[in-house]
């Protein structure tokens, strides 16, 4: 059983991650994790200390658990960049500050870093208003470039084809063909995937209202910094093998830095393919799952699907958002080494890499609810 420990500041509770049922547990490993949670309250997605929290928490877990593999995510600059007006100088300072945190972790832990930027950001240009179509258009996972059209009419399709802000309208069969070598349940894919031109974002029902200032920039390639000449990776799908091929001989930290692309990544890097043909990943679960599994993950929770249909009572994994199961065969499966994941991107930390222990912020729509640790393995301690 995987245990989820919620810390809502001065108050902790333990749950079965799958069912959400309250459980009790007490052993040195759980106590160590709970003490770190109590000592490290999450400052908030937009707070100056949001990225420092990642480094501090990860260093505490490294000291307490002695892992060989660490998965980290630094996301504060992505949230700030999305919602704030920033000058070039301010953005530059933000990039410097996140890499100060990365450097601090690497220096104090001694881990060899493999660092991935999820793609850059660009100024928001305008909305594409698709709320008046006959069909239903949905955007999910903070996506700007992609949305899904359900039950569209011929008139809807004619209208969409005439909009210059739309790059393409892709029928689900065409999308399946593009990734025909990828397995997985493709039943969630919307009838049509709508693809916006750079800078645009779909105005849909179901979107959360906050004024967006920047959106993900085109990212056919993303930056990849590989410490100590571990090798190379031509595609995002190669990163898993690169890490798992070396993790038994040296301690490796796979570090995801959100909102940074090949143009503003400050350290030496390779350019790594971030998708296929016209499709590239925006920061989010599909990109993370692809990194962690080494396989394209475009079918699992696709952009614009009807996520809410699966939210019925007794849904499993109630603390894991739209995830309905634990992803299988991920980065650390079968490696046999101790692993941890820490980040300020909710949900993805405990669901994506499959680490023994994960510790993440519990934030929804930037509202800070505290932290959640998930302990999957206690037998290695």
């Amino acid at each position: 059983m995987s245990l989820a420990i919620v810390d809502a500041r001065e108050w902790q509770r333990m749950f079965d991650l799958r069912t959400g049922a309250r459980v009790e547990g007490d052993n040195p490993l759980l106590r160590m994790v709970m003490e770190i949670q109590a000592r490290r309250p999450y400052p908030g997605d937009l707070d100056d200390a949001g990225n420092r929290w990642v480094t501090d928490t990860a260093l505490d877990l490294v000291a307490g658990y002695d892992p060989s593999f660490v998965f980290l995510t630094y996301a504060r600059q992505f949230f700030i960049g999305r919602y704030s007006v920033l000058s070039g100088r301010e953005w530059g300072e933000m990039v410097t500050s996140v890499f100060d945190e990365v450097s601090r972790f690497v220096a104090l832990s001694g881990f060899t870093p493999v660092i991935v930027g999820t793609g850059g950001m660009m100024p928001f240009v305008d909305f594409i208003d698709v709320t008046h179509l006959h069909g239903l258009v949905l955007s999910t996972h903070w996506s700007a470039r992609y949305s899904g059209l359900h039950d569209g009419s011929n008139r809807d399709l004619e209208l969409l084809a005439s909009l210059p802000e739309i790059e393409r309208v892709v029928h689900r069969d065409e999308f399946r063909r593009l990734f025909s070598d990828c397995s997985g349940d493709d039943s969630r894919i919307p009838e049509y995937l709508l693809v916006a031109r750079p800078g645009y974002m779909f105005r849909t029902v179901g979107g959360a209202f906050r004024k967006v200032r920047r959106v993900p920039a085109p990212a056919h390639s993303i930056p990849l910094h590989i410490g100590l000449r571990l090798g190379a990776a031509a595609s995002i799908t190669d990163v898993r093998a690169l890490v798992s091929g070396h993790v038994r001989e040296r301690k490796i930290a796979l570090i995801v830095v959100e909102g940074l692309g090949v143009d503003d990544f400050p350290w030496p890097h390779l350019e790594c393919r971030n998708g296929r043909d016209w499709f590239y990943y925006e920061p989010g679960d599909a990109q993370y799952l692809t990194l962690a599994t080494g396989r394209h993950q475009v079918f699992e929770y696709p952009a614009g699907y009807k996520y809410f249909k699966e939210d019925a009572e007794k849904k499993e994994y109630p603390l894991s958002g739209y995830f309905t199961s634990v992803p299988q065969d991920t980065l650390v499966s079968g490696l046999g080494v101790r692993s941890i994941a820490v980040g300020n991107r909710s949900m993805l930390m405990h669901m994506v890499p499959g680490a023994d222990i994960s510790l993440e912020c519990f934030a929804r729509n930037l509202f800070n609810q505290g932290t959640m640790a998930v302990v999957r393995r206690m037998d290695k301690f």
Partner: protein
Amino acid sequence: MQCTYCEWRCDLSDGRLGVCRMYIEEGGSIRERFPYRWSSCIPSRVESVPFYHAWPGSRCLVIGTAGCNFRCRYCSNSFVAKQDPATIQDGMIELTPEELIRKARQLGCHSIVFNVNEPAMSLPSLEVVAGEARAAGLPMGCLTNAYATEESTELLGSIFSFFNVGLKGLSDDFNREYIGIPSAAPVLRNIRRLASLGHVEVTTPVIEAANDGELGEIARFIADVNPEIPWHVFRLLPEDEMKEARYPNIDAIAGALEEIRAFLPNVYFHNFVGSDWVNTLCPDCGTTVIERFSLGCGGDRLHSYNGQGNRCPSCGRQIRIHGEKVAWNAGEEKP
């Protein structure tokens, strides 16, 4: 000319804007500045709003507009409620009432719930939406601060059938300092009236060292209106001007609420992940009739409904529920 939608009764003569900046005077009448413009239009679990005793398990379309007549220092929706409404119109969704109803149906929603800001800011639009919703068989509910005038309260009662009223505190000092209104007297008056017109739940955010001392008095007021009214005590998430404030201590508040349960049985304590105080217990025999799971703000969900109809499965006592249990995907089957 005076606006009579809420108790500020602002003078809107000569192009003046009121506290909420949502109405203007034109040709001798008061009209909305931004009709049919929605800041939110999103499917949600009704428990997340929160409504714990109305249409349990159902999916609602949450809508909101802009502007507010309160100035709560801890507002969690300040990016909509506290902004000058004119400056955020470019982010709004413009949908006619017919389109809104159509979206509700496409999203498989059973009801429409006005949330985010105060419905009194958009009453003319909501009146028209209510007409369309009624024709489509979609009930309407809202969160309200109940600072409406008596006339507007009647209008709210004709638009909505279920309400969650924010009763933030009782003392004038608290209301002046934290909410920006001179007194809670109109709110108390309107809670009584709304409870006679429809289904009412009440929500009180607790702010440590500000209104936590009033919990007993607030509970006694609610019990005096009707002891079966569900009361949601919210652990305040310090936001906006109160970002640096302490998070209220959960165990201390929970201890205080245990005594209150004796005379106000449907008391809940949430707005934090994993709360233990979100289940509905039968007031007579203590059986768990409705189990929920709380994910903190905007994330509560029905876990299981154990009632037989609206009765306790053990002793048969009637549980106060507005409507009935609705399957989450019931609306998906509708055309």
